[in-house]
């Protein structure tokens, strides 16, 4: 199963680091330098009405973002994703160099799956897999509904083999 992670960080060094860490886990990575670029990539920038959200050609299975960024912060990004009917089930992880309990709590309350303190370690990245597995499952179900296909009857079962499915023609 291939996973695609969107990494968001305004620091070029941290972008390089997170990209390398994610790639060692064999994830596909798109790294962007701002919250605005992330919103653009996710198709959340132009339309206010999330019901007419344009499906991206590339599926994103997890978003990992820095907290402190100019203009659109990681927290803003998290909220926008959770407010979007189409994207709310994509797991979001926040990274921050500052260990502020209220910040961590706010992010987790808003729906972030994890909060990593920087510098991010391999052991942190190893924690992403279960979130990715769950996220992939849910978005596949959603796409099935949009395409008016039968919903997946089973998704993940450790004992049986996973169901095989073809690439979807995504709704424009």
């Amino acid at each position, binding site marked *: 199963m291939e996973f695609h992670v969107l990494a968001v960080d305004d*620091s*070029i*060094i*941290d972008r*390089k*680091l997170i990209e*390398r*860490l994610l790639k*060692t886990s064999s994830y596909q990575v798109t790294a962007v330098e701002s919250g605005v670029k992330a919103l653009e990539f996710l198709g959340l920038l132009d339309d206010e009405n999330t019901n007419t959200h344009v499906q991206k050609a590339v599926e994103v299975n997890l978003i990992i973002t820095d907290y*402190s960024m100019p203009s659109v912060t990681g927290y803003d990004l998290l909220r926008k994703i959770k407010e979007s009917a189409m994207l709310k089930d994509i797991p979001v992880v926040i990274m921050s*160099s500052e260990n502020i309990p209220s910040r961590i709590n706010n992010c987790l309350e808003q729906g972030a799956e994890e909060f990593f303190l*920087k*510098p991010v*370690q*391999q052991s942190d990245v190893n924690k992403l897999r279960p979130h990715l597995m769950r996220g992939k499952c849910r978005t596949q179900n959603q796409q099935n509904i949009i395409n008016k296909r039968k919903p997946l009857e089973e998704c993940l079962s450790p004992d049986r083999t996973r169901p095989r499915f073809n690439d979807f023609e995504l709704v424009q």
Partner: protein
Amino acid sequence: MEVDQLQRSFLEYTNSLFRFLDGQFGQLQLLQDESNPEFVFEVVSLFFEDSERILNDLTLALDQQNVDFKKIDAHVHQFKGSSSSIGAQRVRNACIAFRNFCEGQNVEACRRCLQQVKQEYLLVKTKLEALLRLEQQILAAGGVIPMLDS
């Protein structure tokens, strides 16, 4: 010089850097492998470029008639982050001290902090450049860069 000797020099030199570079640098070295043989070099190069840009911005900002302490704090915060990501602990600590003085909004104190940060940066830069040179020598002699005990 023989590969053995170069590798020993490399390990000795790396060990001597423990005051300047913390465990995070070791993590970076672990991320380097045959598929990414230049990883450390690339990250360190980015760090040099980024640092020099921030130091210039800080110098300019402290030279202004009306010093914008919020902006300075933002720059120092950035520098603290990048130095932390590379393991340059003395630079990071100098940035933490700098941020405390920013709160006090004392221009002279901030200028002194900037000098301190600059000094620490130049020190770690020299060390990193020497380390990378040793790596190049090992590779040129046909050897592999020895892995360190984490």
